[in-house]
């Protein structure tokens, strides 16, 4: 934290710090929300995001621990393999876990909500079980887990009055998450694959009549969803808390779901929603003394994402429209 002398700079410094925290939460919410976006755009409702994140946290933490030892001379290329492998393993484990959801909903046509609930329930148990195997205890990992070297964003981190603090000592993954919007947007709206994926979510019967194979695309959507949620969970465990702790996802998977709804299933608007909700998470941590905000008890600040989503869903403000076929069973065989 920057040393603050007078009231003014204290406020700016706090705002900078809050934005920094908000960027971290943004990364978690955005990555998970993108996961939900791919799944739901392909027509599979995914309320199991929280569970997929949980799997990402425990496996990511294990990866970071396990690959801490430097690789043999000449093979490491000087890269921090611990955290990198942690993130990749969390991502792979999330996708593997999501395959249960894909199998249940696409192949066996189980109700998407039922399967999602089960995914969330089962994830807690699997995480505990894996934790006993990885760390010898059920609810947390050992301390001393490495993280990626934090970076300062050029130019932005030089903003005076403490506001630059928001862009100092950030995880490189924050930058990755922000930049991810470009390939995601391109893939969804400018490639044949994206058009087909979206058509499966809007009208699978029509898509199939035009020769699109619906089931494989939906599998891809759900697996991508698990990979992104798993990456998000691994980011939380590897880069933010530097450890696996049971319950560290704190319902962020559901906040990501809320952001996804608010964004109207659009990757660019999702960035905005994720940042706003991320900032709401940061307020109780850094802006508890700010004017006006100090009058609101923390718990009420924490529940704002949920309230906003309910208000929007109820149609009091704005209008959201989910992919037309999301959640509906598709009866057209498994090809």
């Amino acid at each position, binding site marked *: 934290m920057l040393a603050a002398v007078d009231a003014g700079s204290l406020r700016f410094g706090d705002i900078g710090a809050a934005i920094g925290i908000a960027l971290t939460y943004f990364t978690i919410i955005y990555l998970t929300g993108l996961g939900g976006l791919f799944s739901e755009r392909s027509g599979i409702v995914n309320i199991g995001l929280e569970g997929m994140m949980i799997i990402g946290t425990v496996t990511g933490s294990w990866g970071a621990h396990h690959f801490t030892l430097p690789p043999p001379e000449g093979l490491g290329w000087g890269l921090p393999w611990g955290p990198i492998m942690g993130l990749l393993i969390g991502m792979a484990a999330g996708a593997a876990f999501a395959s249960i959801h894909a199998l249940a909903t696409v192949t066996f046509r189980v109700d998407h*909500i*039922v399967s999602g609930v089960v995914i969330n329930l089962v994830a*807690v148990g699997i995480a505990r079980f894996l*934790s006993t195997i990885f760390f010898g205890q059920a609810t947390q990992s050992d301390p001393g887990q490495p993280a990626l070297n934090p970076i300062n964003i050029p130019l932005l981190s030089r903003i005076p009055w403490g506001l630059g603090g928001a862009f100092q000592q950030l995880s490189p993954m924050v930058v990755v998450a922000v930049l991810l919007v470009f390939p995601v947007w391109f893939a969804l709206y400018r490639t044949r694959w994206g058009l087909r994926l979206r058509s499966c979510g809007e009208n699978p019967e029509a898509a199939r009549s035009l020769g699109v194979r619906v089931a494989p695309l939906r599998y891809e959507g759900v697996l991508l969803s698990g990979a992104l949620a798993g990456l998000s969970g691994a980011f939380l465990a590897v880069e933010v808390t530097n450890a696996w702790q049971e319950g560290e996802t704190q*319902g962020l998977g*559901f906040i990501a779901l809320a952001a996804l709804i608010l964004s109207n299933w659009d990757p660019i608007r999702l960035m905005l929603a994720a940042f706003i909700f991320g900032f709401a998470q940061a307020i109780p941590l850094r802006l508890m003394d700010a004017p006006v905000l100090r009058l609101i*008890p923390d718990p009420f600040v924490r*529940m704002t994402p949920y309230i906003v989503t309910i208000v929007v869903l109820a*149609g009091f403000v704005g209008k959201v429209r989910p992919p037309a076929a999301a959640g509906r069973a598709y009866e057209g065989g498994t090809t």
Partner: protein
Amino acid sequence: MATAPISLPTETARERPEWLDKLAGQALAILIAVVIALGLGSLIILGYGESPLTVYGAIFQFGFGTKDGFGYVLTEATPLIFSALAVAVCFKAGMFNIGVEGQYLVGMVTASWAALKLDFLPGPLLMWVVILFGMLGGIAFALVPAILKVRTGAHEVVTTIMMNGIAISLVAWALAGPLKFTTEAGGHTPNLRTDPFPPNARIPDLGHLFGIRSSVHLSWLFVGALVTAAIIWFVLKRSRLGYEGRAVGASAGSARAGGISIGSVQLRLFILSGALAGLVGMQQLLGDKNYLPIGYEAALGFTGIAVAFLGQNSAAGIVAAAIVWGVLARGETAVQIKTDVPREFVIILQGILIISVVVTYQLAKRRLLSRQLRRAATVEDFVDSSASADIEGMAQEDR
């Protein structure tokens, strides 16, 4: 499907009544799911170099072997019966109340408020009032998604998920403010919690009548849960509300055409569901702890969903499933004490069981549907070959 009037089936050789088909299908689905779960569980056990028989035997023996063990199982089952019933009531009408979790947390807060602030009420009256407040809290929290669904069409799944998030913060707020403890328990600083409730708010112990230790906390609430299950069975199967609810769940369009006010049915069932959810926390509050602790995240609402699936949303099935779940929960200790397998194995077993139940039940349902389709096809004696081929095709895809 053609809607021509259906004459009696011409082919009666292998006719079975539909309900028997359905029941047999459900039983078979559960049986297959249990076999799959025990089978996969055995693989994990073998991986630890233990014998599956030893492990399963230990779980069974801990649950049913001693009076105290069985009492513990029933105690564990009590809140699950309530939360699974809450889920099932909505499910019958095609609604998904994922908000039982939030509703029961809020019910615990309102009940605690009543227990602490209405402590002037004499004798067992206080207990009844506290329970009533728990139900009211659950109802109040269920009303939000219910009204939004009926008035604006906001999907109850998403709104209840959001309400769960709100509930956790509400509990934190209540425990840090209005309900924060005023008298510290002797010695060290207690965790954030409420003051202890007056003794007459407690639900009387049932276990001692059967020689079960009082530390098991088997209370009369278990009997209450059984009675509630019977009432819900009656409501769903024999009352007008239940009939209308099932009609809405089966086909909203037909229900509307039949003169049923869908919104009103959904609202009433959601209120019933919220009231049941409000009872979930009572075992913990009034049977066991006698205060409301913070960080009380037992996920009883979500577990209730699993129990409701396992019990296939029928009242009797739910009671049985809750007891099975209780045996497994008790089994965690058994596995830890008696074997080298970590206790978390049981949670995995529960998970595999619930996934297999969901999938096999779905397959059984589709099998039943395809059989009905085929039967309808033979009854109507299609001349139009393309239509019957269509149905055959659907039936084949279902296999």
